[in-house]
């Protein structure tokens, strides 16, 4: 089985996040970076499928030079090789652009399966995997909790709301967007880290591909303004409920 995992490097969760002076992105002077959390679970799922079924795991990453360390981290954990689509340091791409880049990288690979994280911790679009599937004409499913390989097909468990789950069977090749927290993540062992240096990573300059990228741009990044407008409704439950509905309809206008 040939599995491609797309991974992204994002600002570390314990970074001190500050908006950059231009107001369009984060101030990177104080940032450290790490693998996007859902992608780490996508990688873990891929490695477990490989452990069980055999085959190859290829990591693909679109990101600046520094994202190479995230590719090598995936290699240290057991991926076989990497493809790095190198972007300029300050590039922030929309989902369609990223998907176009990824499609370029995987189109000659003919994978059985592509795993992505459900969404990225920085932009949180949650679209890249789905758009990629559409560009490739592959089947896809999102919020995946479990993957079972049948004969030439996949049976997956999707997380719905309220503790409901859905089981879907879909043909291969397919793109699955993996939910965080579904498995225990493995460590990169020291031997894995040492060996990763010897594994091949193909680097492709994104600019050299002549793709149309970056149609959507971020206008402004800002911290949510804090406004203290809490109200405590008192009274009998029925009355409070009625008041609440009233307020949601006419003040908040969300119903």
């Amino acid at each position, binding site marked *: 089985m040939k599995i491609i995992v797309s991974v992204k490097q994002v600002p570390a969760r314990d970074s001190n996040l500050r908006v950059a002076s231009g107001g369009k992105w984060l101030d990177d002077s104080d940032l450290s970076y790490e693998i996007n959390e859902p992608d780490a679970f996508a990688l873990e799922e891929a490695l477990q499928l490989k452990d069980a079924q055999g085959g190859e795991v290829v990591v693909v990453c679109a990101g600046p030079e520094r994202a190479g*360390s995230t590719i090598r981290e995936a290699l*240290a954990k057991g991926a076989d090789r990497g493809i790095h689509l190198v972007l300029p340091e300050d590039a922030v791409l929309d989902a369609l652009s990223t998907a176009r880049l990824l499609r370029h990288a995987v189109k000659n690979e003919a994978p059985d399966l592509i795993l992505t994280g459900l969404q990225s911790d920085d932009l949180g679009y949650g679209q890249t995997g789905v758009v990629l599937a559409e560009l490739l004409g592959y089947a896809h499913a999102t919020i995946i909790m479990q993957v079972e390989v049948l004969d030439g097909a996949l049976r997956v468990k999707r997380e719905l709301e309220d503790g409901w789950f859905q089981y879907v069977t879909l043909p291969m090749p397919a793109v699955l967007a993996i939910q965080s927290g579904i498995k225990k993540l493995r460590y990169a062992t020291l031997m894995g880290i040492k060996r990763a240096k010897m594994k091949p990573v193909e680097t492709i300059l994104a600019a050299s591909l002549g793709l149309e990228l970056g149609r959507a741009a971020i206008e402004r990044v800002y911290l949510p303004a804090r406004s203290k407008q809490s109200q405590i409704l008192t009274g009998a439950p029925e009355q409070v409920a009625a008041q609440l509905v009233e307020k949601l309809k006419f003040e908040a206008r969300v119903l």
Partner: protein
Amino acid sequence: MATTIADTTTAGRAPAQGAGFLFRAAAPEEVFTPEDLSEEQRAIAKTADEFWQSEVAPKLEAIQHQAPGVATALLRRAAELGLTSVVIPEEYGGMGLDFTSAAVVTEALGRDGSFAAWLGAHSGIGTLPLLFFGTEDQKQRYLPKLASGEMIAAYCLSEAHAGSDALAARTTAVLTEDGRHYRLNGQKMWITNGGAADLYTVFAKVNEKLTAFLVERRFPGVKQGAEEKKMGIKGSSTCAIYLDNVLVPVENRLGEPGRGHVIAFNILNLGRLTLGPGTVGSAKAVLAASLGYAKERVAFGKPIAGFGLIQHKLAEMAARTFASESVSYRVEGMVTKAAGELDWRDPAAGSRVLKAAEEFAIECSFVKVFASEVLDYVVDEGVQIHGGYGYHQDYLVERAYRDSRINRIFEGTNEINRLLATGMLLKRAQKNQIPLLEAVKKLQAQLLDPLSTAGGGKPAEGALAEQAKKVALFLLGISYMQFGPAIEQQQEVLAAISDVMMYAFVLESCVARTAKLGVRGRNAAAYTTLFAHQAMNEVERVAAEAVAVCSEGDTRRTNLAVLRKLTRREVADVVTLRREAAKRLVEHGKYLV
């Protein structure tokens, strides 16, 4: 003033040499810093950190109470990831990585004193004698088992009556008549991992001369004493080891008979170096806990992190941790570089590492003394920030406070290391290995030059480090003039010289690192100024005492005037620097460079 008498220390660019810092200012690019760690070393640190967070941290209470099997199971788990065998060659089941990689693991897993002791006694002093001095057969028999954690190791040098004076050991080893065994008799004291170890490196005397042996726990006649009731690192195992007519096969003698002291001293050197990153790991953990507490704890209507006196502590804790971290990794880099590419297929690889550590033995002693004293400062202020809660066992700082104290005692007490540092310097000067005499003479000539009395200016921290070096040379000159070779009896003077050199060396490490960090450093420049302030105050204080005991009357007055000139400086606005550094630390929530 900085420029008028600066050229004693800026001579040509010789290859790095032990004690070389005294004669030459280091260019920043020559100084290894944590920022220079490779991507691979960072990845290793990350694995160690994840292992700590998810497996060690939840077990700290159990380790602390010596719950049976918990610490050893964690050691074996660490071994599976390669964390216990970083420097062991691959052919013996290790990772075959360099000592700097081992240092980052030590830092990440050094956060708890007890677990650090388990790990350090096993993969440091327990394994390294075999790695460096073992025969091929010995390495094949034991190294893979130590690498995998199947066997736990311990190091048995100290005895009830022989600690600092290790050569006074009374344990004996006598060759049996058939020449196939040594018969060991004696008692070893204070053995870390003693209660759980399977392989002991035991030092015993063959014909009055110290010799090392690999002694298995299962050899008849080996017995462990009860666990010692200690002040701190209560979760580590420490006990006496009794050797009662233990027959050790001759194949288990480590190194040549009578060469045990070489093994012991070499391993101690490396141990001193390792103590640096280990204590830095603890210091960062205590700082993070203190920052968190200071932010949450409200008194008089506001978080105590807003009070100047608390900010003072937080900033100083961070600044001194920065200094300790800077000097630890600098010396780590010096030794690694001097040892060259670590290729274990080359039979000389091990001896190159040992020679490198020996070359920088003075610097290793500085790391040991400085890092242990910084951690003691950090835990002390950590408790103070926590107020009454810092005195309660529910808080990390209470344990850290007790755990820290051992670092000034083992791996050679700080007194012994201070004496060693100056002692080694004098010995090298006698053997003409370092240009000490020339440097002292040159300085004396400069001091007599009336032009050089021009003072003023605002020496930057780098210039202060150079001035501190001159103070050391000055003290060496006047004390030798006064006492001659009997200087060796003047312990207080030797220690003062050692301290002055140490502060100069550490300050220089901070300056170089700050220069390399450039704009990436948010607090580094403040830390360096704060540390320069502290260092120069200390230099002046200890040097004045030494001057006073080395001279009297008019000479003393002249010498004190020279000292004042050499340490003249403008006091920076350290109060404001601390407040600002502390604010950034509180915002960041943990140690910040």
